Every structure is written in C-alpha cells, then in structure tokens.
C-alpha cells in the first residue's frame, strides 16, 4: 500500500492497462442496462424485417400514463395505443365514430348514450367493453390523480354507467355541446383497477396493454419509444410494421438525422431549417397550418372573479383607445415575414384558419392596418401627450412605460419583443421586455402582474375551451387559482359565449362564435399577431406520403387522431432495405481508429525505450 504513490515507474507502465480496465468496466456496467428490455424486444427483433417509421421528436414523453401525460409527445402516443369514444376525421376535423359506433342525447341534452363497437380487443386478447369506458371515466371523476390530464372532460359529468357490455350512459349537470368530442383515452379496466396510486404509476411495463393501431413495446427514456403495429386493430393493421419516436435535444440534431436517413419524419422545424431542406434529395417538406395562435395580451385592468382589481397593470391600458393604437403600431406582415420566415398567417380574429368554419377576419371597416402615424394621431386625440423625454403621459401624468413579459426560453418571444419595443418607441411608448421563466410568466399572468405579456394557445377542433378563456368566469378566484388569459370581462362577449355553448346546431353555433371573435377584436385586450405554420419534413425515398389532417394543408404528426402514422405509405425501397446497414461500417471505423491509436502509442513507447539510454 505504501508503494502506491512511490513506485511511479511501475505505475507508468500500468497506466495503459489501467485505462483499458477502466474503460472495459465502464462499458460492462452498461450491459445490464441493455439486457433490461430484452424480453420485450425478443418477440420483435429489430431486424425482423418490415418497415419502421421513425419519427424524430424534440419533446420528452412526460409520462406514458394516460391519466398524467400532458405533453404533445405523450398525447400523440396515447392516441396510437388507447382508444377514444370518438375521433376527428382526417379530412376536416368532423367528429367520426371510433370506439363508439353511434350516440344519442336525451331531449334535455343531459343524458348521452354511447354504443360500443363489437370485436375490439385489448392487446392482451381481452375484449374492449363498455365497462372499460365507464371505469375510465369514473376513475377520473373519483380519483383526483386520475383527473390530472383529462379531468376537464368529466367536470360536468354527474354519473357514468354501463348497463351492458355495449352501452355507456353519461349524465351531465348541464347541457354540453362538446359531449361528442371527449378525447380522453380509454384504459383497460382489468389492468388499471389493480393500480392503487395512479400518480406514482409510470406505465412502463412493456408491452403496454392498449387497443389502438399500435402497441408500445420498448421505451428508453430520453432516447426512443418503439411501437409495433397492432395486427388486430379493428380498422385493419397499419401500413408500417413499427413506429419509433426518437428523442432529439435540439432540432438541428433531428434534421441531421433526417438528412443521414437515421429517421424518416421530423417535426417542429424552424423556418431556417425548413428553408435549408429545400431541394435536398429524397426529402420532402410539409408546410401545414397550425392550431396555435400567438397573441400579446394588454392588461385591461385585471380583476378577480369577485370583481376586485388585482395586479400591477398600467392604468393607461384600461383605455381601449390606447390598446387599439398599440395594435395599429404592430406590423403583422413584417412579423410573419421576419419572425416566422413567412411560414404563418397574419393574425386576425381569434381562431386559426386551420378551422375554416370558425376562422374570422375583420371586415374592412373594422380593420386596424399598420400605421405609426395613425396610431400617433389616435393617442394624441385620446389625450396622451408626449412628455419632454418623448414618452407619452396619461391623464394622471404617469408615463406610458410598459413591462413586457416574455417567455425567456422562446426565441420567438425574444424577437417579437425586439420588434414591438422599437415600434412602440416610435409611438412614444417605452417598452421594457422582461424575459422570465415559463413558471413566472404563468404566475404573473394569473396574478395580473404585467402590462403586456406574450400568450398563445393550441385550439382544439371544438373551440369552446379557448373561447371560455376570455370570459368573466375565467378570471382567477380571490383565493388563487383560475386560468385567465386576457382578463377580458365583457358582458356582450359572455352572452355570445353562453349562447354558443348551448347551441347544438352547427351553423348557428359558427355564427355565434364569429360574433364573439368580432367582439374580442373590438375590445383589443389580446392582439392576435399570427398563426404559425407547422413545419415538417420526411424521407421521400422511404415514404411516398402520409395522411394529413386536414387533408388540405394539414400536418402529419401530432394530429387530433392517428391518421398520419396509421396511413403512412412506405416506398418499395423502404420495404426491401434492411435496417442497421450503416451500423457495421461505423463499428469498423471505431475499431480502426482504436487500433491505429494503439499502434501509435506502442511504437512511440518502443522508440522511447530504445533511445532512453542515449539521452541525458
């Protein structure tokens, strides 16, 4: 032991050996990790032939537990492995049967009866019955943890029963127009009734028992999730044999992987990447309309549900004239061109153009086109003169100096902040962008502690949820909680909202929703800047095409349904090529490099030993 530090000559010679030993040990330490998932993959060898659709994603699966998972990545998977009562058509988002073959509601619209499809089986062979559906909903109603992700669907339920294997009866507290679009995944009762604590259950025992077009078979956190095709899917087996989601930490890595053919589809491309892929061999780009809108909320004088003012909003923003003037100072066309690289639609009413029915643009007389001069004029007329420093003053003499809260990790926010700051400075309004963490953005939004804040929502095919955000009811309760957006609390808007919720006739409902958007636009509490496109790309040598949703200008991945993955059309080349071809050559490269290194080390050492005697 004494000689450890002393016998250096021995230590020197031992060093390479020690290194080798350590490396071997480190590698050996990993072997069990590989073995862990072996049983799951044995049945479905990676090279067992067939076509694998590999999708690069840049978001983690927050949970594979359908009661807990919120993230887009997770909900996308749930749609593939669990059934839902109904789904949205790939063509135009119309509600179509899925697990429920048909449904009807009572006269008072309070009782809904769904009939469950026959011949559908869970992946472990058990049949899917009405009891599974009832179990799932009841668990969400009774177990708070199970309500985590989809509790909002059952908020209004008073009871759920399954009188027989094929019938589910749901009673609601009040009429609800969205009853036909309950997107909550249905889980097998025989599996989940054994789970006591939903909150702690990761649902990672592979294969996951489900009944969608695919079955999850292998999961490596932060690396990939593999699903195999469900041959017994009631609609028929999917066109690919396997589907794999591969995690990438940044979109550049994903794009490189696409270029090298390591993955087949990539989503959430930046405009730059999208442009860079133009003209690349074997890669086709897909520009789809997005479901998101991007808005700037101007604090109109936030108040809680009791009507008491809260937050630190600037008084000048309570003046709708100021808000409209600000709106006129924002050049949306330029934002779409510079921030989105042209891949987006200029913001208009409220709901995005992907939903053609509801999409509303202001008529010419209501439009507020970009004009700094007009905005300046409007502010002058409204009584906000410029102070000696060029900054306008409100009636109370307070300078128009606004805190603009941004999401710190969002490049889009940062860029929009830069533009808005410059434009408003020409209006005599000082803007101080404040990039903060998402948690803080949300907290400040809820508390009304902002003058301007960036906001944005993904809109479901049924727009009820985002419409409700702008009602008085969405304002936070005095004790905290609540989910406000722009703190618009307008009697006229609320009336329109209530009418559309109780309206079961589609075209009348559309009309009401457009009117509500017009009111929202008029009040100018939320300035809708743009609707970004969803940019995707795929390997055209391996896939001829995908089912898009909607079929006109829609997207491949993250649909409101499973159509994109389910209806992928592999090329002949993809069917015949064997996987893992690139791997062996890579292995040879590594071995070669290692060997070369070893040879160099040995020869240098030998030379040194020979010459050592001659040197001083």
């Amino acid at each position: 032991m004494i000689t450890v530090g002393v016998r250096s000559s021995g230590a020197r010679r031992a060093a390479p050996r020690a290194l080798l030993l350590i490396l071997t040990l480190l590698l050996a330490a990993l072997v069990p990790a590989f073995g862990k998932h072996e049983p799951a993959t044995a049945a479905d060898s990676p090279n067992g032939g067939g076509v694998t659709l590999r999708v690069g994603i840049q978001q983690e699966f927050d949970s594979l537990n359908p009661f807990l998972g919120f993230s887009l990545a997770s909900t996308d998977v749930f749609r593939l492995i669990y059934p839902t009562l109904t789904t949205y058509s790939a063509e135009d988002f119309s509600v179509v049967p899925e697990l429920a073959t048909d449904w009807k509601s009572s006269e008072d619209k309070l009782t809904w009866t769904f009939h469950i499809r026959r011949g559908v089986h869970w992946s472990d062979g058990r049949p899917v019955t009405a009891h599974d559906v009832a179990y799932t909903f009841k668990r969400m109603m009774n177990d708070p943890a199970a309500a985590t992700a989809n509790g909002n669907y059952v908020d209004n339920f008073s009871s759920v029963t399954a009188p027989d294997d094929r019938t589910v009866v749901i009673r609601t507290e009040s009429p609800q127009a969205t009853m036909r679009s309950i997107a909550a995944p249905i889980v097998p009762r025989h599996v989940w009734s054994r789970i006591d604590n939903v909150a702690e259950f990761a649902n990672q025992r592979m294969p996951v028992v489900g009944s969608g077009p695919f079955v999850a078979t292998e999961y490596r956190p932060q690396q990939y999730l593999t699903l195999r095709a469900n041959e017994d899917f009631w609609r028929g087996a999917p066109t690919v044999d396997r589907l794999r989601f591969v995690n990438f930490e940044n979109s550049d890595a994903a794009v490189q992987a696409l270029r090298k053919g390591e993955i087949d589809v990539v989503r959430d491309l930046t405009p730059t990447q999208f442009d860079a892929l133009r003209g690349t061999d074997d890669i086709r780009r897909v520009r789809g309309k997005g479901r998101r809108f991007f808005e700037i909320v101007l604090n109109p004088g936030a108040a809680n549900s009791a009507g008491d003012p809260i937050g630190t909003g600037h008084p000048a923003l309570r003046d709708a004239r100021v808000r409209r003037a600000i709106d006129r100072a924002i050049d949306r066309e330029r934002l779409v061109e510079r921030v989105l690289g042209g891949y987006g639609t200029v913001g208009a009413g409220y709901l995005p153009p992907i939903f053609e029915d509801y999409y509303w643009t202001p008529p010419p007389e209501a439009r507020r086109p970009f004009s700094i001069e007009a905005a300046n004029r409007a502010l002058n007329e409204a009584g906000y003169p410029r102070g000696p420093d060029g900054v306008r003053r409100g009636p109370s003499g307070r300078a128009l100096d606004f805190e603009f809260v941004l999401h710190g990790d969002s490049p889009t926010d940062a860029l929009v902040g830069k533009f808005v700051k410059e434009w408003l400075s020409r209006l005599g309004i000082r803007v101080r962008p404040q990039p903060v963490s998402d948690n803080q953005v949300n907290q400040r939004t809820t508390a009304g502690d902002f003058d301007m804040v960036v906001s944005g929502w993904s809109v479901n095919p049924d727009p009820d949820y985002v419409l409700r955000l702008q009602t008085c009811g969405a304002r936070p309760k005095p004790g905290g909680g609540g989910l406000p957006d722009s703190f618009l609390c307008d009697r006229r808007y609320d009336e329109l909202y209530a009418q559309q919720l109780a309206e079961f006739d589609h075209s009348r409902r559309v009309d009401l929703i457009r009117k509500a958007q017009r009111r929202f636009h008029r009040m100018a509490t939320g300035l809708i800047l743009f609707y970004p496109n969803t940019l995707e790309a795929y390997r055209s040598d391996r896939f001829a095409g995908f089912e898009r949703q909607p079929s006109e200008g829609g997207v491949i991945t993250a649909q409101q349904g499973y159509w994109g993955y389910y209806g992928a059309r592999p090329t002949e080349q993809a069917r015949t090529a064997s996987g893992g071809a690139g791997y062996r050559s890579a292995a040879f490269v590594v071995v070669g490099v290692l060997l070369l290194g070893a040879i160099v080390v040995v020869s240098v050492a030998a030379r040194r030993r020979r010459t050592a005697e001659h040197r001083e």
Partner: protein
Amino acid sequence: MTDTRDELETRGPASGPPPLLRFVAAKVGGGVVSLFLVAVLGFFLFRVLPGDPARTMTRSTPVSAEQLAALRHRFGLDQPLYLQFRDFLLNLLHGDLGTSYIYNRPVAELIVERIGPTVLLVGTATVLAVLVGLWMGTRAAWRQGGAVDRWFTSVGLTLWSVPTFWLGLLLLMAFGVGVGPLPGLFPVAGMSSPDVPPGVVARVLDVAHHLVLPCLTLVAVIYAQFMMVMRTSLLEEMGAEYLTTARAKGLREDLVRRRHAVPNALLPTVTLIFLHLGLVVAGAITVETVFSWPGLGLLTYEALRVPDLPLLQGTFIVLAGSVIVMNVLAELIYRLLDPRVRDS
C-alpha cells in the same frame, strides 16, 4: 521560528490509528455537513422562486381550474414553506426527491435512470483527460520553454478557451454531419441506435461509437486543466534539492524524473484534479445537451427549460453532492498516498 518542535526528540512513527480515524471522521463529517448544506441550498434556492409550475406543466393543454388546484395540492405547493421544507428533508432521508413536474414521476427514479450514461461519459472523459493531461504536463515541464512545452501549452490553452458547447457543435458539424467530402462518421445524437443487432459486443461497439464525439469534446476542453496543474506542480519540484541528490547518486535523467520528481508532483495534482471535477460536471451538462446524450446533464437541461423545480433541485443535489463526495474521497486518498500527511 519553530519553537514548538523539539529536535532532540525522535518523533515516533504513526502514533496508532486514532489520528487517522479522527481524520476520516472529520473529513466524512465535513462532507456530510456540506451535503446537508447542498440540500438546504437546493431547497430554498428553488422554492423562493416565484412562479406557477402547475400551469406550466399543463402548458397549452385544456385544463380546468380545479385540475390546477389538484395539481398544486399533489405537489404540496399549497403548503406553507416551512412544512414543505420539513417534508423535503424527511423525504430526502428516504431517498425521495419529490415528483417531477414534467415527467410526473419520482425525481429519484429519473436520476437513477440517467446516472449510468453520465458516469460512462464523464468517467471515460475524465480518465482520458487525466492521462493525456498528466503525460503532456510532465513532458512540458521537463523541458520548460522548449518546443514541446510551447506547443502543448498553446494548444491546451486554446482548447481550454473555447466554449464547450461551441466546440461540440463544430465537431458535430464536422464529424457528425460531415463537411464537404468528409461523410458524417459518427452519430449526431443519443447513446445507442435502436436498430443494433443483438449481442453484447455489438451493443458495446454501438455505444462506443456514440461516445466518441461527446467524449472527445469533453476531453479537449478539460485536459488542459490537468496538464497545467501537472506542469506547474512538476515545475515546483524541479528545483527541489532531492533531485540534485538523485542526480548526484548517478541516476539517469529519466529515472530522476520518474522515480523522484513525478511521484512528488503527482500528489498535489491528485487533489487539484478532484477540485476540477466541478468543471467536468459543468462540461457534461453542455456536452450532453449538444449531443443529446441521455444523462443527468441533459435531464438538468430539460428541467431548466420549464423550469421543473423538483427535478432541478434533484439534479442540483445529486451533481453537487457527487462532486462533494468525490472531494472527500480525494482527501482520503491523498492522505493515504502522501506519507507526509498519512500519519500526522
């Protein structure tokens, strides 16, 4: 003035195990205190942060106010801070680091899952960097001011001056993506390919293939530290009189170096190497992010973006804690290696 030392008396050899035990106890005790401080720091740092994680978790998903309240309750966010702190400490003792917001799973479980890849990456890189650094440092110091010294030093310093993630990006572009005629030799992301043929050898080779670029990046950035430490440490020894003794004995120059100078210079280097482990950890965070290496660093980065406070807190405690543990180990090892402090 050494007036407490009595030259007449022969100072005995090791006066038994008690001092050593006391030393070990003191060091381990100090480490435990530091770990506790890390835990406390981890808690308060991340809890004083304003923000509403519940809403962030459900970002852009339709949820009701009731769901949010239930979430806040589930994560204990509706409790007063001191109660949260008490629960945090109690849970920590059981190895429970709370539940991640973004993964909806126990943080401890996530960390255990990711720790292997990080140990592989950081371990390999550190071992390589230490070997390369020590060797180069020895060569550079022995011929101070010579061509070898100048080259080693300037290359090392230049690489040290480059931001880790930027170097990683360049390597990724050059060897992962490929530049001009050079094809992408190495994978751009991840730790293993999903479509590797079965068999341990193939899997190990596959991981090694993925390991090359991240490991290279990390080694390139950190080895200079070890090299400079070794160089300085050896230069300190270069003028030592016992080297003159060794030369007077008729030893060859390389024996003087290997038997006498290097073992002495190595001792202070050991502690400094461990002190620089924090730097390696820092490098791991960025390297793992650039190369999508599924380890703790990447987990930290994931947690950062939200920020997922329990997860950040967990990775903070684990990363800082492991560096502290390594340092305590270093002190113990040093104690064993250096006869001068071994028995005192």
